């Protein structure tokens, strides 16, 4: 059973559609959304409706900091440009969509896996996993063997064996990685709708629970259309630029 892990979609319809189609081609039968459906991009309504539809059919959908800000489920500190996007988003989402964002859970568990938007040690505070130090903190606290996180927009894989030393690995897209049962893993699929590693292609990952194989993917999509829509909506220019250059 292959599960598609999608996170940080950020109102990017083109990227989400491309990733969902790609996941279907690669045999994904389940979907897990790790949060931040809104903010930055120009299609919050489409993205929230899509996630809502999957959630009603049983998919995991978690709350990110941008969803919390837009839905009003709690205070979130964002910079001025990001806050401007959230204010705009609140004007275009309907009551049902806002209510959906408000009630999203912060974490979900499934067997050996923990799913969370930002980190496993304090999900509600949205602290970042910048590197091995925070990754170690996560793996020492989380009971499950594998943690899947969004929030950081760059794909990354951390692991910890019996020596308790954390290693970091930059995944190669399309190469299945066997997640050995003898160690703990922390996987960051990277952002669907706002990649920031210099490559505009969308990021997501698939995980096969039976074979323990994790694959990271890069999916090219029509990022120029997505950027045009950001400009047309009057959102800050930097978010259009980020879509065009992936940085």
């Amino acid at each position, binding site marked *: 059973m292959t599960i598609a892990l999608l996170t940080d979609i950020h109102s990017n319809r083109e990227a989400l559609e491309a990733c969902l189609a790609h996941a279907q081609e690669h045999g994904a039968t389940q979907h897990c959304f790790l949060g931040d459906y809104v903010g930055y991009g120009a299609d919050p309504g489409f993205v929230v409706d899509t996630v809502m539809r999957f959630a009603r059919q049983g998919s995991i959908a978690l709350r990110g900091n941008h969803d919390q800000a837009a839905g009003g489920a709690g205070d979130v500190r964002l910079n001025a440009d990001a806050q401007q996007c959230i204010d705009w988003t609140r004007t275009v989402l309907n009551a049902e969509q806002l209510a959906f964002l408000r009630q999203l859970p912060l974490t979900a568990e499934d067997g050996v896996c923990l799913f969370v938007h930002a980190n496993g040690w304090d999900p509600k505070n949205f602290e970042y996993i910048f590197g091995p130090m925070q990754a170690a903190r996560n793996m020492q606290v989380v009971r499950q063997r594998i943690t899947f996180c969004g929030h950081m927009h760059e794909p990354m894989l951390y692991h910890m064996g019996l020596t308790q030393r954390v290693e970091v690995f930059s995944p190669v897209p399309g190469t299945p990685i*066997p997640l050995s049962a*003898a160690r703990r893993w922390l996987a960051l699929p990277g952002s669907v709708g706002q990649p920031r590693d210099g490559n505009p292609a969308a990021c997501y990952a698939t995980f096969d629970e039976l074979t323990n194989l994790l694959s990271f993917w890069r999916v090219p999509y029509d990022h120029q259309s997505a950027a045009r829509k950001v400009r047309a909506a009057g959102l800050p220019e930097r978010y259009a630029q980020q879509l065009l250059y992936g940085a």
Partner: protein
Amino acid sequence: MVPEATRPRILEPGQIVDGFCLVERLHRGGMAALWHVTRADLAVAGIMKIPLLGEDPTAIVGFEVEQMILPLLHGPHVPRWIAAGGFDAQPYIVMEMIQGQSLRARLEQTPLPAPEVAAIGARIAEALHDLHQQQVIHHDIKPSNIMFRADGTAVLIDFGLARHDRLPDLLAEQFRLPMGTGPYISPEQVLHNRTDARSDLFALGVILYFLATGARPFGAPTSVRGLRRRLYEEPAPPRAHRPEFPLWLQEIILHCLEVDPEQRYATAAQLAFDLTHPQSVALTARASAAQAQSPWTRLGRLVRRLAAKPTTRSTTQQLNRAPIVMAAVDLTQEWEALADALRTAARHVLQAAPGARLACVSVLRTHRLALDAPADVAGTHRHVHRLVQLQHWARPLALPGARVSFHVLEAPDPATAILDYARGNRVDHIVIGSRGASSLRRYLGSVSTQVVAQAACTVTVVKVPAEERAEPGEALAPQAER
């Protein structure tokens, strides 16, 4: 901290583990026990490797590494993976049992004659090249990890120290001791660098040295201090043991044992090429060295080691920059214009790959029935004449001797000869001329057409524009296809 499940447990013949019946324990070493196992649906005999996991974390990680990498490998040079059991129950790997002998059995017969050393080495190099093409570095090449199938194919076993280019390196965790086996470990592994496929070529160089002389070039150190000696101590040249030792084999062995990986063979395929073409080995100062250590050689080696930088290239990038390129050159008069175009195409390929090696090949057509006739004077003359022409053709490329070789093949069918040569020498890229487009040629098929259709590697077909060919009555040929 060792999980309960990974502690050693008592296993008996007849016991069933995950559907496999334990038949007989074949071996119990420091790291693992090997059992012959059967299962009704298995077409081949199976070996179950059960790790003996004590308190040593490297043993546990090594087993994880093998569990991760072995299922991804394929081909005749590795044991076929059959099954694996996780750490939550009894950890194990089941793989194909290799029916054959370990290279270790030959060590008692050393020193072996040079041709036999070269033949064994070429088969191991072929296996290593296949492994490197699968983006895996073995990191523990030694006689006990090399088996030979009944047909002579070398098989590499034990992937506990291996590294896959596209997977996390579980052994990158900083274990205190260098990981490898004392006599065979490369200088860069001693310095904890695990990213260079040429580490395996160093280990193979140690094996060749041992097989050819009966002595180990760096002894069998067990301390880190002992291992570090190879960073500055040049191995005694084989000719110091045996003054009559062939120059070409000494050249090959010392080339493998260079302290800086950049100074070694670029790929195992290039090493295999030299081992199978002793007459084409370019001899350098390495070949004739007969002196053991001097303070100057030690200083030189240390300086080269200090200047060496860890490679930033992946195994695939390393292989891509050092392909074996074959130029199939026809030097009969009508091909003159094409020979120039062919040289230009070969130059372009070589410029894109700084470590490439060019094999210039020309086929002398023989009559099918005359194969067994003794070589006569006229035949020898024809052969030498073609060789001289071939060297003349390549001269403008200005390649150093170590990067170019010349081969005149005698065969009734040029296309088959070219294809056999390419396959046998692991050629990555064939550059061949084509005279193109006459209707008769289209009907009968040309040498280049057959080579393109049947080659397992990339083929560049070179053409010259029609007006330069000056063949009346022919349709316009397309420009050189690249």
